[in-house]
């Protein structure tokens, strides 16, 4: 992957609707310059196995004025490591 830039944050969540499927700390977001795809990695603090098995998960990164939300295309957890490929911002 050739990253066009990275975005780092302290705290984010994986959500199924409004329910928290996982809490992620120390995450890094990177956009592939060639494909435009977003990737994120971080550390899993808490996770809910039931919710993580649901469709339509979102990666939600709060910021001061609200939150950025990406649809998660695929993800893997090798505790405590979380990695996901994201679709466009919602």
């Amino acid at each position: 992957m050739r990253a066009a830039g990275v975005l780092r944050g302290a705290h984010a969540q994986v959500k199924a609707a409004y329910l928290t499927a996982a809490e992620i700390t120390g995450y890094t977001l990177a956009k592939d310059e060639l494909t435009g795809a977003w990737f994120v990695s971080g550390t899993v603090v808490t996770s809910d196995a039931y919710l993580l098995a649901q469709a339509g998960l979102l990666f939600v990164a709060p910021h001061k004025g609200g939150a950025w939300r990406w649809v998660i295309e695929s993800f893997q957890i090798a505790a405590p490591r979380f990695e996901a490929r994201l679709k466009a911002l919602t």
Partner: protein
Amino acid sequence: MSIRVRRPATERLELSQGDFLIVKQDLTAGEYRAFLRAATKPVTMGAAGAPAAMELDPIAAGEAMVLAYLLDWSFQDADGRPLVIADQPPAVVRAALDHLDSASYMEVQRAIQAHQTARETAIEDEKKTASGATGPDRTLTSAA
């Protein structure tokens, strides 16, 4: 056999002055336990045969209920900027609640209490219906 998991749903609660809250329609079992944990003190078991008592802290219970249900609102800060709580960490939501004027906080708490009571009634009514069936659209869809 019946469906025992509800699809996450929200409701909009209207407040005075055109404001509104967005709240969870229902709590999951995990959220309900967390709410009870925050609202009550640990039970001390008495001697055999003695009744056990549970202490409820009404102040903590009110705040725990608000934090359990509240997702978003239309409130603004003193400068007229949106008071953002959606998708924010619990500490941010709690801090925002703490800085409301007391009358506004109580209006929020009363609205959510009324919502909780209405949902309890609705769920009891659902159980009494002849079919008692809940449609498949009310479950989370498995990705598997």
